[in-house]
């Protein structure tokens, strides 16, 4: 095994205090891929151990094995010195293992409190449980209304429910799968405090991430996976970001090149006093939004998820047309009532947050998925009939120019990894040479290499004179690529600032709605979000 001897996994020794969890030689073989190969891992009480690796490195599979979701093909597991086989998540929870999934395991038609109740043994009283949820959510800065239905929650809010659900069970081992991507910097700090407190109380924590700064700040130890194998172990505090990146991706961390913004481009997207009441009783109403995005600039909108981003995106894309024309203006045309197809013909392209099922049809081939938005723009339709040759050629171009790893234009969209599918979708939108590109969460859950590539493509598009609007919950990303940044909170939009004139901390404060001149600054906010201010 390629583990340094000083850190290698020891045999569990029942005489002294046994490690909370020991894995030996864990392997998992799927029909087409080896997800884990001879993985060894030890985590002790009070230890926060990072599991570091790119998407597809086998982190999630390993955690699912520990949590009893899947069975390993080979290897042994020891829980507090006893050899065990975890038969199911319920069994894992019984042992004291809690897990916060990256892909949420919540029932959409049930409420938050009902979902939490399902994970608890017995039949807890819902009212009492709702009270406990509120307590935990306030204590850890994870605001969520226990009576709301899951389907009405944003991605970020659903993750909060997952975290709260775990914390309610007083776990002895907590597995966190990429938990911070949807939190404000302040909330991340609060979460870290929580995790440190849990560790001090003796809980062992496995913290999965590819965010190197976070790992260096939080974790005591790290196990690095690449291609399903352990490629090294380290003490993050003693490493640099670069040295850990080398362990993780086998080469230097890519950086984006970003030159000075161009001034004076024409307005390509204008929101002129956009207000829109959400159809969803739990949605966020948009209130009087004003924004200009010019040719040759990238404007970012930051914010904690569930503050109106989804509603704003649907209104801009045309998936939710408005009653009036003027509030959304695309390339000089009042487009508020136009369909998404008509807006696309004005020169708009749109990368949605969800890849499978919205940005792409899972069961269809990449060539068919090229037809989804590029059919007219790329001449793939003649007198109502499809020109498959052109669709295949265009899909091939997306694959080649955006380094999409896949089986070719005939591969089904769902056979691609998340990062590769995202590269394909971004490629499909960018290669149509849009005049305005709107991106939601362009690198959500995408590995480091692919994320840097996608960001660079967006920057290059700006250089060619396109106007770009990026809505993201990742502040690092926004500061890396944006010329100007605004914040959305409670359906309102903050003033726009040049990225060079502001800081992650300032924007973090704004994310709770506290920007200078914000209407009703004091009373418009829930207590949980103002608590840190």
């Amino acid at each position, binding site marked *: 095994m390629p583990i340094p001897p000083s850190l290698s996994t020891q045999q569990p020794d029942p005489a002294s205090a046994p490690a909370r969890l020991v894995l030996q030689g864990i392997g998992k073989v799927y029909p087409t891929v080896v997800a884990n190969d001879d993985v060894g891992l030890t985590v002790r009480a009070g230890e926060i151990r990072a599991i570091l690796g790119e998407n597809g490195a086998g982190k999630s599979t390993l955690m699912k094995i520990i949590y009893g979701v899947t069975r390993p093909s080979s290897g042994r597991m020891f829980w507090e010195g006893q050899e065990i086989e975890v038969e199911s998540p319920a069994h894992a929870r019984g042992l004291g293992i809690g897990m916060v999934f990256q892909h949420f395991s919540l029932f959409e038609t049930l409420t938050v409190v009902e979902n939490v109740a399902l994970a608890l043994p017995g039949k807890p009283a819902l009212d009492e449980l709702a009270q406990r949820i509120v307590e935990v959510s306030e204590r850890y800065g994870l605001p969520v209304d226990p009576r709301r239905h899951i389907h009405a929650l944003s991605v970020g809010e659903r993750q909060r429910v997952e975290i709260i659900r775990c914390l309610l069970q007083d776990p002895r081992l907590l597995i966190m799968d990429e938990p911070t991507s949807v939190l404000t910097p302040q909330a991340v700090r609060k979460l870290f405090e929580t995790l440190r407190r849990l560790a001090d109380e003796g809980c062992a924590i496995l913290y999965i991430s590819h965010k190197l700064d976070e790992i260096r700040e939080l974790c005591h130890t790290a196990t690095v996976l690449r291609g399903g194998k352990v490629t090294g172990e380290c003490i993050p505090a003693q490493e640099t970001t670069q040295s850990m990146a080398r362990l993780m991706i086998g080469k230097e961390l890519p950086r984006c090149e970003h030159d000075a913004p161009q001034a004076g481009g024409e307005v390509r997207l204008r929101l002129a006093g956009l207000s829109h009441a959400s159809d969803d009783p739990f949605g966020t109403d948009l209130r009087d939004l004003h924004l200009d995005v010019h040719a040759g600039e990238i404007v970012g909108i930051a914010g904690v998820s569930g503050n109106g981003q989804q509603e704003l995106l649907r209104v801009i894309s045309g998936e939710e047309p408005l009653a009036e024309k003027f509030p959304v203006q695309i390339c000089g045309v009042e487009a508020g009532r136009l369909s998404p197809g008509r807006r696309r013909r004005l020169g708009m392209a749109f990368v949605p947050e969800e890849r499978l*099922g*919205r940005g792409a049809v899972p069961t269809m081939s990449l060539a068919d998925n090229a037809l989804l938005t590029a059919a007219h723009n790329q001449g793939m339709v003649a007198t109502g*009939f499809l020109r498959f040759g052109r669709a295949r050629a265009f899909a091939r171009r997306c694959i080649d120019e955006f380094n999409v790893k896949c089986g070719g234009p005939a591969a089904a969209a769902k056979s691609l990894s998340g990062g590769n599918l995202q590269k394909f979708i971004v490629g499909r939108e960018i290669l149509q040479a849009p005049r305005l590109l709107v991106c939601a969460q362009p690198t959500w859950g995408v590995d480091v290499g692919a994320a840097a590539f996608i960001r660079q493509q967006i920057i290059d598009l700006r250089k060619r004179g396109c106007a770009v609007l990026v809505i993201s919950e990742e502040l690092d990303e926004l500061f890396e690529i944006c010329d100007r940044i605004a914040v959305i909170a409670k359906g309102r939009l903050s003033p726009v600032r040049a990225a060079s004139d502001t800081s992650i901390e300032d924007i973090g404060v704004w994310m709770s709605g506290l920007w200078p001149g914000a209407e009703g600054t004091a009373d418009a906010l829930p207590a949980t979000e103002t608590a840190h201010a």
Partner: protein
Amino acid sequence: MLELEARAEPSRLMSWASPLLAVVLMLAGGMAVFAALGKDPVEGFRVFFLNPVKDLYALSELLLKATPLMLCAIGLAIGFRANVWNIGAEGQFMLGAVAATGVALYFGDSESALVLPAMVLAGAAGGAAWAAIPALLRTRFNANEILVSLMLVYVAQLFVSWLVFGPWKDPDGFNFPQTRMFAEAATLPMVIEGTRLHFGFAIALAALVAGYAFMNRSHAGFRMRVAGEAADAARYAGFSAARMIWLGLLLGGAAAGLAGMGEVAGPMGQLTDKVASGYGFAAIIVAFVGRLNAFGILLASLLMALLYIGGEQAQQYLNLPNSISMVFQGMLLFFLLGADVFIHYRLRLRRRGA
């Protein structure tokens, strides 16, 4: 220990082999049923499955039976692909028959060559108009098209009954619930002389080709497939959901209406209150056994016609009740659904504790 293991990709081979497997299992099951009923299974097989294809006339009867099934099923498949669940092809079939009958009665003994084309158009329009009601209610008031189209079947049946018992009743028909026989110019010509196989069969084949082209080659068909596979993606791409519903229902209704026209202008030569006889419902099974695909529907409609005629044969020669064909239909669906599991899964032998 045997266990089902998910395949990485759905098997293309199995998606075609599964209907064949289902047919083989249905045959085996059918032989067992014959044996259990004390009939010679070989004789039963011969009567049920070989009699309907034993000579040209038998074959023409089979194709005649398959014609309305084909037409209704290809129309339904277009909607089903877009998750537009038109369950009321039976009613649209009847309204198509009514509209075509109206034209035939209006022209009476006219010998104009335009009567038949007018009846074809009227049949399609009648079916489409009946399907427009669920489309309108769905797009305007979000009324469930499954319920509305199904309930309209009964309205259509009562409407047909009212016509043939009332205003359209043949005055020389001894009070039978039927219209006058159509004139020569209002009757479809035969494809093969000496049989009952009429020109509607050619229309049905043309509809299959058109259905294939629409679903697999046209942009509108592509949009409908996207809507069926992933509604959010269709919305993202800007495909209008309302247009999809209209198109799915109108095309399904028009095809069913054509089938109804073919029945009254073909083998029946008049409108009676028994005009539909379940083709519109059987076509739902045909569409799914045929994988919502034109070529599959061709084969499935032939198979379904075989089961109908085989059932009649078994009634005549084996003294079995007519419900024997329902038993075969049921077995076919049962085995098909069972075999379909292997499109997404495969069997694997696994050692315990491995």
